[in-house]
């Protein structure tokens, strides 16, 4: 059968075999957690607790402050030690809530599954619960999910696309979730189906995860009420890009500068849907996630269930530490992930992976040959070589006219470039300049 996909894109080496077969383990509870108040796109949450207060797992510690924001809950039982300002991956300063963990009580805490009468749910209550649970897009974009599920008046949404592509190299956490707990994902789908009433639900999974495809298909028996079909996607990067995925599975083209809503589609990552299911069936806010620890620098690659706020030092110690040859630590995958300079960071809602990469010399840039491999790679059909040249020449209006703002920084261009030109960096430079100077 032919596989659904999009135009252009690249085939990087995936390195998923390092961790794909490893079942998810729960990381032992750390001695402290450091929970940042900005783990989502938008405005930081407003702190509700003070130093010295005791918190329990799932307790609200900071509330969404504004339309685009998200609640933050304690992932542990413990005492708030202090609130410190530290950088997030990427450099922005943020308040972190440092909690001394009572490991025994935290370990003893159980999230109990309860009965749920779906018929009692309505749009408002579902949205409120998702907002209360602090759920954000867990594929990495961390956009508040309740906002995404609230279509503007008049917008008609008929399709839910479930993103199980996981096209970033190394990452296997979504894969493992689909294999081990497809029902959790389907529980979440059922809840939003109950109130949004999609005409069709399309579950897209890249074809390199046959066990995930099989697991989802067999779990479907218990969810016959859902108008759901599983679509096998070609293995190609960035297959999980929202616009690429929508095109691949529905044939719809999201207009440049528009959102999936404009073509009647909502896209949701599998972990996000699982979190929605947990919020309803377990009363559990978003306080933990599955992430992949991998890379040639880490002693043992693993898929781990990790409490939000866990210091990454604790995570990597559980994986046997990292080799001295490690040059780079990444939050996320190698294509779109963010490098951090030290281990002083914590796991957040959007942390899909922690990669420890060694011997990654920064390749030296050489002149552009006009080979146009970047043009052949760009899933948005942009011309990265021109955008970079315009950025270098500070010709920002020209870059804007060539749709530089439609770049979502997937990195396919810079990956492909034989001259190793930092195309994405130049494009970011142009985008930032255009935004700040309002060109």
């Amino acid at each position, binding site marked *: 059968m032919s596989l659904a996909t999009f135009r252009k894109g690249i085939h990087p080496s995936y390195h998923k075999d390092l961790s794909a077969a490893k079942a998810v383990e729960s990381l032992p509870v750390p001695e402290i957690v450091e929970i940042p108040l900005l783990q989502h796109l938008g405005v930081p949450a407003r702190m509700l607790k003070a130093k010295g207060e005791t918190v329990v797992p799932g307790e609200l510690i900071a509330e969404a402050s504004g339309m685009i924001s998200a609640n933050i809950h304690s992932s542990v039982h413990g005492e708030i030690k202090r609130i410190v300002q530290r950088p997030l991956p990427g450099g922005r300063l943020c308040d972190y809530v440092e909690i001394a963990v009572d490991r025994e009580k935290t370990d003893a805490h159980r999230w109990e599954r309860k009965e749920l009468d779906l018929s009692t749910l309505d749009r408002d209550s579902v949205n409120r619960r998702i907002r209360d649970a602090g759920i954000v897009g867990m594929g990495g974009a961390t956009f508040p999910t309740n906002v995404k599920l609230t279509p503007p008046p008049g917008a008609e949404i008929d399709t839910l696309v479930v993103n199980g592509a996981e096209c970033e190299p190394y990452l296997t956490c979504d894969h493992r979730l689909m294999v081990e707990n497809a029902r959790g994902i389907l529980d979440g789908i059922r809840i939003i189906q109950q109130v949004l009433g999609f005409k069709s639900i399309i579950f897209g999974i890249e074809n390199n995860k046959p066990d995930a495809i099989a697991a989802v298909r067999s779990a479907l028996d218990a969810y016959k009420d859902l108008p759901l079909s599983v679509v096998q996607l070609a293995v190609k990067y960035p297959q999980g890009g929202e616009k690429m995925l929508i095109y691949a599975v529905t044939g719809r083209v999201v207009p440049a500068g528009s959102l999936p809503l404009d073509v009647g589609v909502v896209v949701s990552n599998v972990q996000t849907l699982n979190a929605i299911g947990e919020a309803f069936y377990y009363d559990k806010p978003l306080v933990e996630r599955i992430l992949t620890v991998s890379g040639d620098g880490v002693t043992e690659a693993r898929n781990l269930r990790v409490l939000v706020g866990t210091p990454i030092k604790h995570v990597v110690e559980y994986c046997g530490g990292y080799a001295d040859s490690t040059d780079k630590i990444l939050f996320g995958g190698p294509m779109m992930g963010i490098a951090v300079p030290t281990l002083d960071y914590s796991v957040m809602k959007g942390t899909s992976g922690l990669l420890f990469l060694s011997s990654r010399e920064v390749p030296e840039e050489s*002149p552009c040959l006009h080979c146009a491999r970047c043009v052949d790679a760009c899933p948005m059909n942009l011309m990265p070589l021109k955008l970079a040249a315009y950025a270098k020449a500070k010709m920002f209006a020209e870059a804007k006219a060539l749709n530089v703002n439609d770049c979502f920084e997937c990195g396919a261009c810079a990956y492909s470039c034989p001259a190793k030109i930092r195309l994405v960096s130049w494009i970011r430079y142009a985008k930032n300049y255009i935004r700040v100077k309002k060109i």
Partner: protein
Amino acid sequence: MSDKREGFLLTSSPHQFSPASTPQIMYTVVLTLLPAMIMSVLFFGASVLLLYVLGVGAAMATEAVFKLVRKQSWRSSLDGSAVITGLLLVMSLPPNVSPLLVVLGSVVAIFVGKEVFGGLGANVFNPALVGRAFLAAAYPVPMTTWMAPHAVFGFLAGADATSGATPLSSAKFEHTFESVGRLFFGQTGGSIGETCALFIMIGGLVLIALRISRWRIVASYLGTVFVFGGIFWLINPQIYPSPIFDLFAGGLMLGAFYMATDMVTTPYSHLGGFIFGVGAGILVVVIRLFGGFPEGVMYSILLMNSITPLLNRSINNRVFGAKPSRTEGAKS
């Protein structure tokens, strides 16, 4: 794992890169030229080996000197692009050309054809052709003195050709046409590396398969020569050569597969490549049939090189989602 290590690399995404590199591309091109180079040695003797060495050496040395003068790293002269320039220049010269002219041509190719523009990637014209154009203008007699090749393919009738003329000049001035078989295998007079269409095509097709060459330019260039040349042949086959002859004679194969496909100096858009190929094809036929020279490949490419920046600048892709559309049904 040291307890508190600082200073991991802070670079922005992406953090993974394809193994492709400029030297890899350049030396792949060099490798695919080897079959045609070996044939040229068989046809014209071991002396052409010396010419290759001199041409490549002079090109690399010129680039290295230029980089040093500009206080840049001389190592970029090893990236393979100067090797290609040197090889292509030698391949486009007559077999008994003096070694001095080869060196001179290489120096001009790199200096005037490439470095004055700012080096690799910034040059407008194909450097090898700039060098050749200089030699053709400055030394017209040695540049049009030809020798017959040694008989390599014995199965071709009259393989031991003695005529010193090239098939194109015979066609142009005497209206006698060399057999296509001899053109195809290269058993004719002509430039060092241009005569053997077969082996040039083999190398060129490998580059297309590796997606280093852009097939649209090659196809539109050759196709235009075939169609446009064919029109004249249909009008008067006594005077004008057949379109098959047009394709395999002279430097067209080398030009189409190795010069019209130079990434730096030809358009990168599909439409631009098509325009380049058609334009160059028309120019070849016009110059060959009606111009002052028997061969027009060099000028066809150089002239189209000159409009390449314009084509690159003016042809843009439409961004994904540029026009709202909503089509039902899964796409594959």
